[in-house]
């Protein structure tokens, strides 16, 4: 007992461990999944945020440009309407062009550059130039009035032809970058394009929102990003130039490493479809800020995961213990039930053995008995055929012969029963005419020598077919009819009725006479009636008949035994799909 309980404990412990491990695996998986998803989300969010910042900046840049455009367009319209400007351009008095325009553009050039935060509200130009009809720059007579530029920068203002719409460009001179806007000047007389005004501004500088973002402009293979030292700028310029060469898109972003620090670099074309060389806004965001954020989040998630694991540890422990408690009980219960079952099995085995032995014994005994009985019967018959004995002797011999025959019947019944018990009896089912079989037996019943004066009632249709083996069915009917006759009273009656009822045929055999006391098991083998009666059988007939009826898929039962009437009922299967045997 102690060994089994130890095994049981071990099993329960192993179950608890497995349960615990499973819970821990689930918790760990969930933590890892949460970690992975959170990390992915934060990376995507960070990139999106940076992109939004970049886009916001670009859009404020565009707003400023639009403002400048509107102001300049207005200015150019006024300029173009000026007779002096017309006169200067049309009457070949170019030297008078700048002096004529000076008054009109005075406010652009006066004063100092506004601080970046006011750039959007004031229109301060660094320089302006007019273009002649071929797109070349018209040299100003006095450069100090229109913003001095070196020859290289001034050359960058030229266009291959006069633009008919506003053009934006970026030119670099030394360490400075200028945003230039070229506005066409149309003659108010003829509508012809006569000149263009190119005005240079300080490019939009985004306010530093403490994002660590650095922005600049890339134009013509040069990167203007003063926040970085030259070496970094050079390597960055190479990367940008390569990216721009490879890309077909006007805007994109990629990762770069600047002096070991990862950065996210955004770029966007600032002047699509411009006559000036393409210029790109460049924004470099250090990834460090959101890397730190990511690390913080990692710690948070890691901590939460650890807590979850710890919680899971206790919870799973608790759960494992609580779940293994009924298991323990179950194990105990199953232990008991197993012992019980083993006992029952042993008993069953013994019973089966005994049954088998008794069956074999019964079969053996029957066989052993049959031969001497036959000898006895033949001897008695030959004695009865002799002559010369006294009449009493003949009567005695006749009784003996009758008893012998009876004994033969009992032995045959027993033999049949023992075969059934051993499971050796096979039914060769055929189509049997029940009506005919009952009729034959009723006729035989009337012809019997010791039949009492009983009235026979037949209530069944002709040709009622059932499925079964004729000789065993015959045996059932014979048994029942013999009983009905045997346990009848003088002047009594026997009623045989049969009725087909779907898949069933119900045969009822009733008789007058003494009733069977309730609670008496008349179907028991070797049963003997508790009430003394003149007639009595050997006590296996009903048992045999019921076994045979069951073997045919039907049943035999006592349905009524009261008030001078006893009725048995046998159920057979109707003979559908069974070949007929006449």
């Amino acid at each position, binding site marked *: 007992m102690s060994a089994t309980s130890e095994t049981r404990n071990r099993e329960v412990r192993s179950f608890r461990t497995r349960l615990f491990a499973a819970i821990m695996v689930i918790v760990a998986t969930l933590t890892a999944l949460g970690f992975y998803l959170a990390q992915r989300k934060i990376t995507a969010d960070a990139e999106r945020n940076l992109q939004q910042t970049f886009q916001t900046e670009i859009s404020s840049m565009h707003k400023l440009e639009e403002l400048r455009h509107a102001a300049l367009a207005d200015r150019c319209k006024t300029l173009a*309407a*000026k*007779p*002096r400007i*017309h*006169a*200067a351009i*049309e*009457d*070949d*008095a170019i030297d*008078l062009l700048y002096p004529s325009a000076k008054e009109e553009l005075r406010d652009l050039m006066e004063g100092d550059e506004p601080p970046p935060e006011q750039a959007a509200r004031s229109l301060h130009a660094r320089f302006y130039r007019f273009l002649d009809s071929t797109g070349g720059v018209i040299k100003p007579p006095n450069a100090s009035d229109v913003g001095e530029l070196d020859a290289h920068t001034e050359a960058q203002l030229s266009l291959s032809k006069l633009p008919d719409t506003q053009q934006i460009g970026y030119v670099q001179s030394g360490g400075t970058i200028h945003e230039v806007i070229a506005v066409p000047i149309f*003659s*108010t*007389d*003829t509508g*012809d394009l006569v000149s263009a005004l190119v005005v240079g501004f300080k490019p939009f500088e985004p306010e530093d929102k403490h994002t660590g973002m650095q922005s600049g402009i890339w134009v013509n293979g040069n990167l203007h990003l003063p926040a970085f030292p030259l070496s970094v700028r050079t390597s960055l310029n190479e990367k940008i130039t390569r990216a721009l060469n490879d890309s077909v898109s006007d805007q994109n972003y990629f990762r770069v490493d600047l002096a070991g620090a990862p950065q996210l670099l955004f770029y966007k074309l600032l002047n699509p479809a411009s006559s000036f060389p393409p210029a790109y806004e460049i924004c470099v965001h250090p990834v460090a800020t959101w890397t730190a954020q990511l690390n913080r989040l990692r710690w948070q998630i890691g901590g939460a995961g650890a807590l979850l694991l710890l919680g899971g540890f206790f919870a799973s422990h608790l759960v494992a213990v609580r779940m293994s408690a009924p298991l323990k009980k179950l194990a105990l219960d199953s232990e008991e039930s197993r012992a019980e079952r083993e006992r029952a099995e042993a008993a069953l085995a013994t019973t089966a053995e005994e049954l088998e032995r008794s069956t074999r014994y019964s079969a053996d005994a029957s066989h052993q008995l049959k031969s001497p009985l036959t000898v006895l019967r033949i001897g008695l018959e030959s004695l009865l055929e002799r002559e010369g004995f006294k009449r009493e002797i003949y009567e005695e011999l006749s009784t003996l012969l009758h008893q012998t025959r009876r004994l033969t019947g009992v032995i045959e019944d027993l033999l049949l029963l023992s075969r059934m018990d051993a499971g050796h009896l096979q039914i060769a089912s055929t189509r049997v005419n029940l009506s005919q079989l009952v009729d034959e037996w009723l006729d035989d019943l009337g012809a019997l020598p010791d039949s009492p004066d009983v009235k026979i009632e037949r209530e069944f249709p002709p040709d009622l077919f059932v499925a079964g083996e004729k000789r065993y069915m015959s045996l059932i009917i014979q048994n029942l009819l013999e009983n009905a006759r045997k346990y009848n009273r003088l002047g009594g009656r026997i009623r045989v009725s049969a009725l087909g009822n779907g898949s069933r045929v119900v045969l009822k055999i009733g008789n007058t006479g003494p009733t069977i006391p309730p609670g008496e098991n008349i179907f028991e083998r070797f049963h003997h009636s508790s009430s003394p009666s003149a007639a009595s059988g050997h006590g296996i007939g009903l048992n045999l008949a019921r076994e045979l009826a069951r073997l045919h898929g039907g049943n035999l039962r006592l349905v009524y035994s009261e008030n001078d009437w006893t009725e048995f009922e046998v159920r057979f299967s109707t003979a559908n799909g069974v070949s007929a045997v006449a």
Partner: protein
Amino acid sequence: MRLLELLWLNALFCVIPGSLFAGAAVEGRVELPKSRSAPVQAKRYEIVTKAGVLSTQPPLAVVYLTGNFSRPASFPLKEVAQRDLTFIPALLPIEAGTRVQFPNLDDTYHNIFSYSPAKRFDLGRYRPEERPIPSVVFDKPGLVTLRCDIHEHMRGLILVLSTPYFVMTDTAGRFRLDMLPSGHYTLKAWVDSRTTREKPVDLREGQTLHVDLP
């Protein structure tokens, strides 16, 4: 007294034909560009610009004789008025050295100026009652475009010539130049700011030459 008057008249008639028919004459026709609009009834001409070319509308031409002519001691005073926000006349041919005055006949300010290479000037703003009437001496031959700084659409032309012999055609392009000196000269016709036609002419005393400038 009456006799004296008659004598004077007689003498005058004797002189006028002599002076009238003295010298050579040229007449003919200048082929003018097609007018783009119906002729203006009020005989007002305006200066139009087309592809940088200035011309009168309806088209007119100035025919003049070039050569070495002696410069007269004095020049008549000429006038380009501003009336109804236009220059009248729109095209004025003058000999170099002529003074042109620009009376303002409108009720508003004008500011006549020119950036033309032949004459740059700026009269500044002035009112109709401005006295003396602002004037400019045009001493260099060439085409002067007149503009008003206040009224941007106003255009006028002064064709400054180095010859005293010039005349404007009628709208059909017909012209006649009288009292020309004999000799070998070039007859020119200014049609617009880009187009000047010319033909050599041999002028003889008392002859009228017929020259067409197609």
